[in-house]
């Protein structure tokens, strides 16, 4: 699965947690979850759980700590998917 494919799927994962649909539809690797998408910090765990369910992976605390924008989230998802192989 390519970065671009995960980026597109990530938009669906993030959609319930942001009201800023315009920023979401134009999301790039550099889009920050809190600063740009205005996602409340209380939803960050929801996003990690949703990503775990979608890709059948487990995101540990060390990896979760790295997630702050779309790019870092995709990096973690790709790393965890590789670990499964």
């Amino acid at each position: 699965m390519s970065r671009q494919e995960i980026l597109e799927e990530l938009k669906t994962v993030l959609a319930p947690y942001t009201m800023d649909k315009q920023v979401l539809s134009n999301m790039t690797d550099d889009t920050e979850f809190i600063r740009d998408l205005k996602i409340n910090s209380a939803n960050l765990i929801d996003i990690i759980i949703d990503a775990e369910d979608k890709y059948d992976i487990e995101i540990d605390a060390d990896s979760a700590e790295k997630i702050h924008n779309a790019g870092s989230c995709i990096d973690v998802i790709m790393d965890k998917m590789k670990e499964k192989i």
Partner: protein
Amino acid sequence: MTSTGNDIVALQLINTERTLKKSFYSKILCSEEIALYTQINLPGLSFENYVWLLWSVKESVYKFCKRHNPRLRFSPTRIKIQEVSFPVTQQDAGVNTTQEGFSFLKEDAYCCQVSFNAKTYYGRSFINDELIFSVVNNENDFQDIYWGIQHIQDDRYVTQAKAVRSLALDKLRKIVSSNNLLIAKTTTGYPEVVQNPHIKLSFAHHGKFVAYSLRLN
């Protein structure tokens, strides 16, 4: 290190079923904190509210520290709650408009002692039917801390941001002898009073609730 950190959780927005799943709460609580819930037997505090109480204290500690360390990332299980005590006095049933306070008395609050990066922090929180609100300090003394909570009609980010600034400015005008007070964000994204940067502010919002804490030196 002078600072303040606060957080608010609108309980109506919490997914209780999800909160009670181990896969969820174990990303917020470490094993010692999970055990602490059964050891201390906090009267009337459900496990889901315990999870979000600890979340709000940890988020407040993170905000307190990030002001001084902009590269810090939030990792809830690394911030360890070591003690929790419950309030002696009865809490209000709800917050319909605005509630403000000063010095956060121990007997009115859930009190937490927190360890993070070899330092100790102290949290004072209250919980009612609608929200959990926490303020954190690096001293077990909240005498120079003011706080406020407001229920707003609109949960859009722009409205939340405007409302919390307005609420904090109203308070500052009453306690600081300076005209034309302005609040601006520092380069690291933390609010402070332009005319007096020694006054540290922390803002929080969730759903239709906004909150501030501020510390006077």
